[in-house]
C-alpha cells in the first residue's frame, strides 16, 4: 500500500542525481535561508496557535458549561470546511485596507481606525490557523469527552484544584491527541501553497514553484521538495517520540450534561466571547465576504455547469473517501496485527504523502504511471490507459490523504485491546469476520472522523485534481482556482460557497453521529 508513495518519493529523491549548481547555488544564497526560516516560523506558530485555540475551545465546550456551549461545540468545527486558499482570499478581501470589513469600520466608526496589516506574518498564521485548528479540535474534543471530567476528578481527589488538575492531569492525558492533531496541522502547513501565495509569503513550497516555473529547473524543485521531506521526517519522529508514552485509556465515562462545570457568570462571558470571536473570524467573516461577492453574480453563476461541478466534486469526494478509508483501515489493521518493521515502515511511508505539495506529488506519481503506459503500449494496448483515468486520480488522492484517514483510525484502534482480539478468536470469530463484527463497530467514531476529514480534504484539493482529472471533468476547487487566479473573486465566491456548503454536510453528520455514539 505504501508502494505509490514510495514511487513518488523515489521520484523526488532521484532528482539529486543531476544537480544544477547555478540554480541551486543562487537559491541557497538568496532564497532558501529566508524560506527555511519563514517555513519554520510558520509551522511552529501555526502549530502553537491551532493547539491553543483547539485545547481551550475543546475544554470549554466539553467540560465546562456556559451560554452557547451546545452551539459552539459543533459550530467551531465548521471553519474546517473552508479551503485554506478560500479562507485566505476571503479574509484578505474583508480585512485588508481596501477590504469590505475595514472599509466599513473606517466609514461607520472612525476614519482613523486601521486594522493591523493583514499582509503580514500574522495574517498568514491567522488564515492557516483558522482553517487548520478544527483538525486538532476534533481530536482533543474526543479526548476530553472520554476522559476530561474523570481526569479532573482524579486530580481533585489528589488534592489539586480544578486549575491544577487541568494542567497536571487532564492536559498531559490529552497530549497524544494534541500532538496527533498538530502533526496533521504541521504537515498541511508545510505543503500549503494556496494560502501563502495569497499573502505573498515565501516558504519552501513557494521556492519549489519559483525554481520550477521561474527558473525552469524542475530538478531543483524536486531537490527543494526533498528538503521539505526532511522537515516532515523530523516532525514525524517527534510525534513518534511522544506517541511512545501513549497508553490505552478505557473510555468508560463520557461527560454527561449534568456533570459539566457551570462557569460563574464572568468566566462564562469570557468563554462565550472567546468561542464567539473564533467563530466570527473563522467562519462568519469569510462566509459573509463570500456572500457579499456572490450575491450580485448569483444569476450568472448558477448555470447547469455549476451544478455539474458540484455533483462532480461531491461524488468524487465520496468515492475517494470510501476508498481511502478502506485503505487506511487495512493499513491500520496490518500495522496492528503484523507489528513488524516492514509494517511499521509502510505506515510511516504511506503517511508521508500528506506533507508533499500536491503538485510535486502528482508529478512524482505521473512519471511511474506514464512508464507503465509506455510499457503496455509495447504490447499493443491503445495508450494511454491509466493516464487521465479516474484510477490515477484516486491513487494520487490515496497517497496524499492516507495520513488524514490513518490517524483517527489508529487512535481509535488503540482502544481495542489485545484481549478483545483473543476473546473474539476464542469464540471462533476471526479474520474478516472479527474485523466486521468486533473491530469495525468499536472504532466507528474513528472511521467516521477519517471519512469526513478525507471527504472535506478531497473536496478542497486542487493540484492533484488539476493534473489528473479526466478531460471534461471539473470540480468546484478547479473552478475556484481558475477564477481566483485571474483575480475574479466575485465569480469565484459562488463555487467557494458551494464547497463550504457541501463540505459542511459531512461535518455536521460527523458531529451528530459522534455525539450520539459517545452517549
Amino acid at each position, binding site marked *: 500500500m505504501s508502494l505509490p508513495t514510495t514511487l513518488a518519493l523515489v521520484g523526488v529523491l532521484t532528482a539529486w542525481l543531476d544537480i544544477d549548481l547555478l540554480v541551486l547555488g543562487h537559491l541557497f544564497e538568496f532564497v532558501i535561508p529566508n524560506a527555511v526560516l519563514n517555513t519554520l516560523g510558520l509551522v511552529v506558530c501555526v502549530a502553537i496557535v491551532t493547539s491553543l485555540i483547539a485545547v481551550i475551545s475543546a475544554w470549554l465546550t466539553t467540560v465546562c458549561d456556559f451560554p452557547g456551549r451546545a452551539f459552539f461545540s459543533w459550530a467551531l468545527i465548521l471553519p474546517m470546511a473552508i479551503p485554506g486558499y478560500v479562507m485566505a482570499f476571503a479574509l484578505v478581501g474583508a480585512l485588508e485596507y481596501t477590504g469590505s470589513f475595514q472599509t466599513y469600520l473606517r466609514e461607520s466608526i472612525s476614519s482613523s481606525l486601521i486594522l493591523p496589516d493583514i499582509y503580514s506574518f500574522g495574517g498568514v498564521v491567522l488564515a492557516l490557523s483558522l482553517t487548520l485548528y478544527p483538525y486538532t479540535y476534533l481530536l482533543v474534543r474526543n479526548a476530553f469527552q472520554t476522559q476530561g471530567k474523570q481526569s479532573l476528578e482524579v486530580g481533585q481527589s489528589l488534592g489539586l484544584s480544578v486549575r491544577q488538575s487541568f494542567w497536571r492531569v487532564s492536559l498531559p492525558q490529552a497530549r497524544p491527541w494534541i500532538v496527533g492533531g498538530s502533526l496533521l496541522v504541521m504537515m498541511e502547513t508545510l505543503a500549503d501553497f494556496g494560502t501563502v501565495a495569497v499573502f505573498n509569503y515565501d516558504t519552501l513550497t513557494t521556492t519549489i514553484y519559483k525554481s520550477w516555473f521561474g*527558473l525552469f529547473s524542475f530538478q531543483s524543485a524536486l531537490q527543494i521538495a526533498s528538503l521539505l521531506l526532511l522537515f516532515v521526517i523530523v516532525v514525524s519522529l517527534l510525534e513518534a517520540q511522544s506517541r511512545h508514552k501513549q497508553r490505552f485509556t478505557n473510555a468508560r465515562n463520557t461527560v454527561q450534561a449534568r456533570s459539566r462545570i457551570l462557569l460563574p457568570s464572568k468566566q462564562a462571558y469570557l468563554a462565550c466571547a472567546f468561542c464567539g470571536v473564533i467563530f466570527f473570524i473563522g467562519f462568519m467573516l469569510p462566509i459573509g465576504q463570500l456572500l457579499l461577492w456572490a450575491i450580485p453574480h448569483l444569476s450568472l453563476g448558477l448555470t447547469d455547469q455549476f451544478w455539474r461541478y458540484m455533483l462532480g466534486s461531491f461524488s468524487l469526494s465520496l468515492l475517494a473517501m470510501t476508498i481511502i478509508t478502506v485503505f487506511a483501515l487495512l493499513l491500520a489493521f496490518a500495522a496492528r496485527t503484523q507489528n513488524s518493521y516492514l509494517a511499521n515502515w509502510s505506515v510511516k511511508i504511506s503517511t508521508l504523502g500528506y506533507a508533499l505539495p500536491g503538485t510535486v506529488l502528482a508529478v512524482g506519481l505521473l512519471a511511474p504511471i506514464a512508464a507503465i503506459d509506455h510499457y503496455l503500449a509495447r504490447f499493443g494496448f491503445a495508450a494511454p490507459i491509466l493516464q487521465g483515468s479516474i484510477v490515477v486520480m484516486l491513487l494520487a488522492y490515496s497517497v496524499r490523504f492516507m495520513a488524514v484517514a490513518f490517524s483517527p483510525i489508529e487512535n481509535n484502534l488503540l482502544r481495542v485491546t489485545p484481549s478483545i482480539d483473543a476473546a473474539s478468536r476464542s469464540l471462533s470469530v476471526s479474520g474478516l469476520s472479527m474485523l466486521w463484527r468486533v473491530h469495525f463497530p468499536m472504532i466507528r467514531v474513528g472511521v467516521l472522523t477519517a471519512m469526513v476529514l478525507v471527504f472535506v480534504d478531497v473536496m478542497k484539493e486542487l493540484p492533484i485534481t488539476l493534473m489528473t482529472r479526466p478531460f471534461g471533468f471539473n470540480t468546484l476547487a478547479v473552478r475556484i482556482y481558475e477564477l481566483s487566479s485571474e483575480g475574479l473573486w466575485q465569480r469565484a465566491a459562488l463555487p467557494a460557497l458551494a464547497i463550504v456548503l457541501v463540505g459542511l454536510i459531512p461535518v455536521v453528520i460527523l458531529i451528530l453521529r459522534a455525539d450520539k455514539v459517545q452517549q
Partner: protein
Amino acid sequence: MRTNQLKASLRYLLATIVAGLLAACTADQDVEEATQAANTDHLSEPIVVYSSRKQHLIEPVFEQFTQQTGITVEYTTDKAGVLIERIKIEGQNTPADLLITVDAGNLGYAAAEGIFQAINSAVINETVAPHLRDEQDLWTGLSLRARTIVYSTERVKPDDLSTYQGLGESQWQGRLCLRTSKKVYNQSLVAMLIAEQGEVKAEQTVAAWIANLAISPTSNDTKVMQAIAAGQCDVGIVNTYYFGRLEAKNPDLPLALFWPNQSEAENSGVHVNVSGAGILKYSNNPDQARRLLEWLATEQAQALFAGLNKEYPVISHGAIDPQVSAWGAFKQSPLALSKAFQLQPAAVKLMDRVSYK
C-alpha cells in the same frame, strides 16, 4: 442491530456515489452528444488541448470552432509548468495535440524542452507579426497584452511619468505598488529590461523600485489597482486586461493607464507579452491542430479570443475591443519575445538579489 444500521448506511453511501458519478458522466455525455450532433465531419477525432489559459477564456472560442468546423475540442487546464512537465512525462503517449499557454517565457521554455514541432503554416506566417512568433516557428502568439503603468488620476500628473525606469526616481518614494516577483509577468518585464539595458542597469532600476514601494508586493495586479484607488499608493505596473476588467466593472475609478518608454530610441517601447500556442511533437493529429491554430488567427476568432480577456489581437488588422482601443495607441517594444525565456532565470535571480518578494 448497530451492524445492520452500518450496513444500511454503507449501502446508501455506495448508491449515492454510483448515482453521482453516473449523473456526472451522463451530464458530460449530453454535452458531447450535443456537439456531436453538430458534427458534420464524422471522421475527425477531437483535438486535445492542454491549456494554462483558463476555461472561461477558451471554452467559448472552442465552442465556436466546433460549430463552424464540426471538429470537437477536448481540453484540460493547469499551470503552464505542470502541463509542460506532464507532456514531457507522457512522451509519445500524450493525448494532447496543442499547448496553449500564457507568457512568452513559458512558450520559450516549452520550446526549449523540445515538446513542440514546427507549425509550418503559411497563414500564421502571413498574419501574425514576426516578433510575436518564435524564431524557429515552434510557437505563435494568439493574443497580445501590454504591461504598463497605471496611476491615480487624483494624485499624479501624467507629465511626471516617463519610463519604467523612471518609477525608481525619488519622487515616487513611498508611492509605488508592485505585484509579487513570483508572477511570470514581472519576470518577463525584468527580462526585457535586462535585454534593453543590460543586467547591471536593470538591477539598479529594480532596486530603485523596491526602495520606492509603499506596501509590500501584492499577490496580483487587481490588488495593485485597488491599493492605488484606496490611496495606499499612487502608481503601479499592471497588465492592460486587468485594468480593463476593473474599469468595466467600475468606470468611475480614479485610475488611468500610461504608456511608458515612447521616446524615439530604437529598442524601447511598452513591454508586451502574448498568450500563445504550439503544436506538440507527439501530436496524433497535427493537421487538425494546425487547422485550429489557423482558425484562431482569423479576424473573427481573434476578436473573440482577445476580446474575451480585453486583450489586443496579434494580427495586424484585427478588430480591437472598443473599451481597449479607447486607451489609445502605443509603441511596442520591438524586442523579440523569445528573449523573455532566455533571460527569465536571470531576471528571477536579479529580483531575488534585490529582495523583491
